[in-house]
């Protein structure tokens, strides 16, 4: 019997992404955000998560995807990183999916740049591909990420 794991999934620019469920603290709707001037551009701002101040990362920017033009307010996927809780901003929340290990495949060689280090691989679901994100890498907010994201 193959090993299976659970993923919290979400959409970014119509693509399906997922992070391992055990790394997710909670999922919440859009919160009031405070800008952090001079911070790396992937930092969207700070949110007050019940008294805990959490940094929100613009995941679209982090992954080098085009900015959201729909005007919808992003959702927060709060994950536990080494440096405390970080909120990943996503377009829309998907289901929690359970996948078998054998549906996993490493990213193709043609996927390049810093994005490659963030995407561990894909799970081949029935109708689409689930991009598996490395939480630690996704939470990094260095300027290098900006450069790599083509800014």
């Amino acid at each position, binding site marked *: 019997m193959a090993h299976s794991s659970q993923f919290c999934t979400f959409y970014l620019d119509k693509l399906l992404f997922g992070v391992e469920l055990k790394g997710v603290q909670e999922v919440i709707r859009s919160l009031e955000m405070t800008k952090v001037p001079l911070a790396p551009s992937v930092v969207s701002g*700070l949110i007050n998560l019940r008294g805990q101040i959490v940094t929100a990362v613009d995941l679209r920017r982090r992954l080098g995807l085009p900015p959201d033009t729909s005007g919808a307010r992003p959702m927060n996927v709060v994950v536990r990183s080494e440096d405390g809780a970080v909120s990943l901003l996503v377009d829309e929340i998907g289901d929690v999916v359970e996948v078998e290990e054998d549906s996993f495949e490493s990213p193709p060689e043609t996927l390049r740049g810093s994005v490659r280090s963030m995407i561990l691989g894909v799970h081949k679901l029935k109708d689409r591909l689930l991009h598996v994100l490395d939480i630690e890498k996704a939470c990094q907010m260095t300027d290098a990420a900006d450069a790599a994201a083509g800014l």
Partner: protein
Amino acid sequence: MNDNEIVKDFLVESYENLDRLDRDLVGLERNPDDKEALAGVFRTIHTIKGTCGFLAFNKLEKVAHAGENLLTLLRDGRLALNPEITTALLGMVDAVRQMLKVIETSGHDGEVDYPELRETLKRLQTTAAPAPSASSAPVNIVPVNIDQVNVASANKAEKTIVAALAETTAETAALKSPSPASSLPPSEIPSPPAPHPTAPAAPTANKAAPTDSEGRPREASSETIRVGVNVLDKMMTLVGELVLARNQLLQTSSTMKDTGLQAVSQRMNLIATELQEAVMKTRMQPIGNIWNQFPRTVRDVALGCGKQVRVEMEGKETELDKTIIEAIKDPLTHLVRNSVDHGIELPADRAQAGKDPSGRLILRAFHEGGQVNIEISDDGAGLNLDRIRRKAVERALITAEQAARMPEREVFNLIFLPGFSTAEKVTNVSGRGVGMDVVKTNVERIGGTVDIQSTPGRGTTVRVKIPLTLAIIPALVVTCAGDRYAIPQVSLLELVRIEADKVSTGIELVHGAPVHRLRGRLLPLVYLSRELKLANDPASPGEAAAGAAVNIVVLQADGRQFGLVVDQINDTEEIVVKPLRKQLKTVKTFAGSSIMGDGRVALILDVLGLAQRANVVTETRDRQLTEKAQQAGSTAENKRTFLLFAGLGDSRMAIPLSSLARLEEFPVTQVEMSGSQWVTQYRGQILPLIRLNVVMEERRNRLRALQVPPAADSGPIQVLVLQQEGRLFGLVVDQILDIVEDRADVQSAATRPNVLYSVVIGERITELLDIPAILRGADLGAVRPVPLAKTAEVAN
């Protein structure tokens, strides 16, 4: 069950005990007959030794054992304590502490077993043993034992046997260790060694007695428990959150008109406040916790430079937040060492000066106005003004000219400059050019200030003022580009608002850099929106500001003042400081974040970081110093900075800038007559206005001129608000010309009254006004000048 936990407990306990040992040993040196203290020292070392045996830290055990043997002799009165012995024992304490450090990091007690130290400890038992009263017979037995021990442990035989051997031989040698409390010592020992039968005076010893069979005192252990700091931090966070939720509840309930709910929320309000106070209290620690190490420090330094110093402490129980206690430990230690090394003189010098050969070092702490004051005073030689001046000039920190003019206080503060040290010779304690500036930086980092006072021949006092806590601080909340920012109140000097119609004159440009004249001095302006890259900034700040009032927050960073221009000034609030995420710490402009009453996050500005970003403080401190010197110069005899204004006719007149409080402009309509005196309302007070043209008029014409009311159609009048003997009055002049710095050294006597003398400033003859004379001459009648205190404008 868990070895690691046992070791951890052992370490924590031992560290505490060692700190007490330092204190006790130094105390003993002064008062060698204190049997209680000696017994305490013995017990501590004995416990450490015993536990080491149990935990198999045999090197540590050896060192402790060597110390214990020496202590046994001391405790039994067969050896008198002398400085050499104390030094050796303190050395042992240090060795034990180092080994504990090694254990803490590596889990075993390291490779070093301090053979020299043990040798010294051993030697002291025999050679330095002129026992005062007791018979010498037992003393001679002991070294034999020690030899056995050392031989045995040297060839790394089974340590347990060694320990056992040592114990038993010690027993037979009638050296009593406290554990077998029942076996009474032979009668030859002059005084009963163990603490229990003696000294009912010491309360701790009495309490300790019941548990003494375990070989160590247990002080009121049921009253306190150990709590991890992280638990307290968590509690603090939660309480902060509770306070916030309470604020929201109060807001909501006040709109609900439900009396039941309101009563409950009021009650919750009270409880939350009390809880907040209680939790804050758990983080408070008495300053004595760090002071307790100072007697030892002082002893070592004093011994090193051949001085005698007594340490006195007042206000040991003064409490401070834990984080602050940690932050000031090093600066205070440095100040204490400095006092002993530099401040207190050698005994011979002191005697010659008619002082007690042993110097006094006084540590004093007390609360005052939400701050804690810590004073470190010595009764030494005091600071040598000339030497500091000379040194500062040698190091090119100031020019000789500045040095000569600088008032005492400024000179004292020179020692806080980087690279300054007056120690004629470099000792291992101080004189290496690092120190006082680091002290100042560290204290300022936590929002404190350092000040130094000194009287030659009488001593020096360093006063450190620090806030009570860093967790909750008062802050000014401002708005910029729609977001709120908090500015810690400690950096705040005052608030200035330039109304929309005055912006064009109130903000000037120095080659593009915006400045504001604040009481005649140029204040560099920093636009927050620009520094934070918030606004799509239009061309020049002058234009950007046009059309709206400008709010300036005058801040101080690293001794430099600058004006921070913000969109809106909201209010002052107590805020709970939350640190920024590690990844955001690279943004130096922010010191942290906080949650505001409405639940949104606000960033706390790091004033120093902001100033550095805006290049306010990138210059070396020389510039700041020069400026200070200028300020100082203007108050001193030889004036340097002048405000120039038009006198009668074509003449030019000046006043020293230091006598100027502000420059103001009043519309004529605001000027009222009080008798023949012009007055105006200024900051809720009546400000008498003295007209320059009247004062300078020839006597026969003066009365007529005095009666003239202000011409209704003329423009606003220019007023120099002057400060004289603590009072304010206005001097009406036609035109303010400039602020100049000039040597003004070509002087000639005054040709008319109310003028001090004529000087040449900028190649023109300028008359320097005699302000006191003008005040005396002006008949102010019933209108008393405004008392200064009531118009004090500096925020907070």
